[in-house]
């Protein structure tokens, strides 16, 4: 089932003292989620991603715009009639029911011709439990489960009624780092196995990039960019997207173009730029630096973090907006030739992005 959002907007009216300041949580969303794909809504907290999810779910009514499931307009359909399954951030498992009763709960709500026989219900419950591998925990209460197990029960509960669309609200944020890695793989596997169109909200770019078919990067209620994770990473449309994707984040310098060359301070870091003279922001991915004793960019060296497989050079530069972080393979011989105070880099042109100083839009060169 594909999901289409058309001009979707949600305004929250101000309350009390801020009566006149309404907040636009979601601003004119237009996108189509293809059938059977895993889509990540990605953005910093407060960007409207959960609001968007709640509107798709039906828990919130949009101020403007329409939502389609397939060809059907569901904008004014109640959540229970949309055929969605939802996994909440804190899982919302009923604490007084055991795992089996929790998973059964949605099935017991079916009325009229949809009503299932008891055997059928139990069969489907077991099916869902098997899918998320919690068959051995069926008689436990949620409080007797670990976070990861609770998470899987919540997914089973969302899947048991065979929804057309599965919605996950920050599903991994309550798990510890190791479990998060396992669980996100699990979510991907379950999604692939069931083929259910899945929308998942996260503020963790790594999470979104690792499992999503498509990511939607949002900020202040506005879609910044939609695309396959790698495409968005390699080709950010603006400074926000470039900064938001990737750890360590992209390094931003104040720079300028003079006579077809790119300058950071007085250093000519890149030539062959076909653009008139102007001031720009320069974004350089951490992996875009090469330690090079003849390199054009000189930074003050702060420290070197050795993380095994690769090395992070932490440095500073007076034109840099933040600390400079360069990641390179630990066998980069040239690292040894640095002085104690300075390190020189050359730059990989492919990892350099230019942005307008004012609009922060990407400039192609």
């Amino acid at each position, binding site marked *: 089932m594909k999901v289409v959002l058309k001009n979707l907007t949600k305004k929250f009216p101000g309350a009390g003292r801020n009566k006149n300041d309404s907040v636009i949580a979601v601003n004119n969303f237009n996108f189509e989620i293809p059938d059977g794909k895993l889509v990540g809504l990605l953005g910093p907290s407060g960007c409207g991603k959960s609001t968007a999810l709640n509107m798709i779910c039906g828990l919130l009514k949009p101020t403007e715009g329409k939502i389609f499931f397939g060809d059907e307009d569901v904008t004014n359909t109640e959540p229970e009639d949309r055929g969605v*399954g939802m996994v909440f951030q804190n899982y919302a498992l009923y604490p007084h029911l055991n795992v089996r009763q929790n998973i059964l709960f949605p099935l*017991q709500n079916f009325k009229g011709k949809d009503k299932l026989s008891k055997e059928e219900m139990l069969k489907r419950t077991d099916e869902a439990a098997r899918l998320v591998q919690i068959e051995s925990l069926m008689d436990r209460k949620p409080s007797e489960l670990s976070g990861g197990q609770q998470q899987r029960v919540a997914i089973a509960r969302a899947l048991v009624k065979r929804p057309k669309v599965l919605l996950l609200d920050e599903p991994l944020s309550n798990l510890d780092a190791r479990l998060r890695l396992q669980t996100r793989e699990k979510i991907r596997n379950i999604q692939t196995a069931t083929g259910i169109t899945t929308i998942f909200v996260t503020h963790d770019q790594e999470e979104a990039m690792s499992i999503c078919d498509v990511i939607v990067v949002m900020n202040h209620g506005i879609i910044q960019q939609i695309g396959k994770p790698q495409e968005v990473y390699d080709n950010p449309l603006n400074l926000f997207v470039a900064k938001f994707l990737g750890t360590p984040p992209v390094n931003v310098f104040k720079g300028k173009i003079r006579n077809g060359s790119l300058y950071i301070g007085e250093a000519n870091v890149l030539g062959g730029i076909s653009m008139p003279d102007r001031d720009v922001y320069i974004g350089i991915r951490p992996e875009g630096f090469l330690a090079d004793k003849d390199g054009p960019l000189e930074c003050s060296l702060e420290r070197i973090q050795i993380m095994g497989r690769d090395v992070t050079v932490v440095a500073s530069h007076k034109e840099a907006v933040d600390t400079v972080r360069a990641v390179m393979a630990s066998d980069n011989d040239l690292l040894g030739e640095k002085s104690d105070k300075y390190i020189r880099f050359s730059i990989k042109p492919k990892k350099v992005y230019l942005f307008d100083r004012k609009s922060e839009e990407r400039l192609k060169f």
Partner: protein
Amino acid sequence: MKRHNITGWIYLLPAILFLGAFMVYPLIDVFIYSFEEGYNFTSQTFGGIGFYNYSYILRDPYFLQAIKNTFILVIITVPVSTGLALLISLGLSSIKKLKKFYQTVYFLPYVTNTLAVGLVFMILFKKTAYSDGLINMLIGMFGAEPIDFIDGPYWAKMLVLCIYTVWVVMPFKILVLTSALASVDENYYKAAKVDGTSKLRIFTKITVPMISPIIFYLVVTGFIGAFKAYSDVVALFGTDLNAAEMNTIVGYIYDMLYGNSGGYPSYASAAAIILFIIVLTITVINLMISKKHIYY
């Protein structure tokens, strides 16, 4: 470790002394009194030890009437007041406009003096030479005969007492239940809504289990409070409760001590011990039931 123990005991000492002197000692004393036969109040002497006091009050028609009244009061008012309080709290938590106003209205009886409330009930129900009371005027509009609720038939008096008790105990229950309802995580309701759960099912399968510890607390304290009813009865029917057939167990104990027929601490003690046993039994039964039905 040992030093810590001593410090702990020293901290507890004032409380232990006071409770010992004013709670534990009287309790033991009451227990002893209840077995002292033919106790003389003035000479502080007694004839012998035995169960005579118990057998006397258990044959006393006033005591049996008091037990009957108390039980009727408990059995009617505890479920009715808790149920009504739950409905009103549900209503209160689902409205937005005037919520504070209604909360205040429902809480008013709690801060109103029992006797003042009793007076209001007199105006509502009492039949005097000049008026039949407000309620009689209302039922008169449907063509029914006026009923004397205060000095009339037993069922009418019991009805007034039950309404009065329910009205007096409800505010606290509403207060507690409203905050209990507000503390239920909203995500449960959202999850239930996404799953298409009906309102009734949400109430019985989610809301009630979630607040069941609070409901249980209200029922237990409600039972204990209703078993100890006395001031409400006085406010409505005056102090000569035996004559009005409206005495309660605590009223009987008081009468045995200080009332017109008073001066019998042994009988009063025996009645108090019986009340204690009843309350203890009911509370234990409550606890046993709750073990099966309370989650957490």
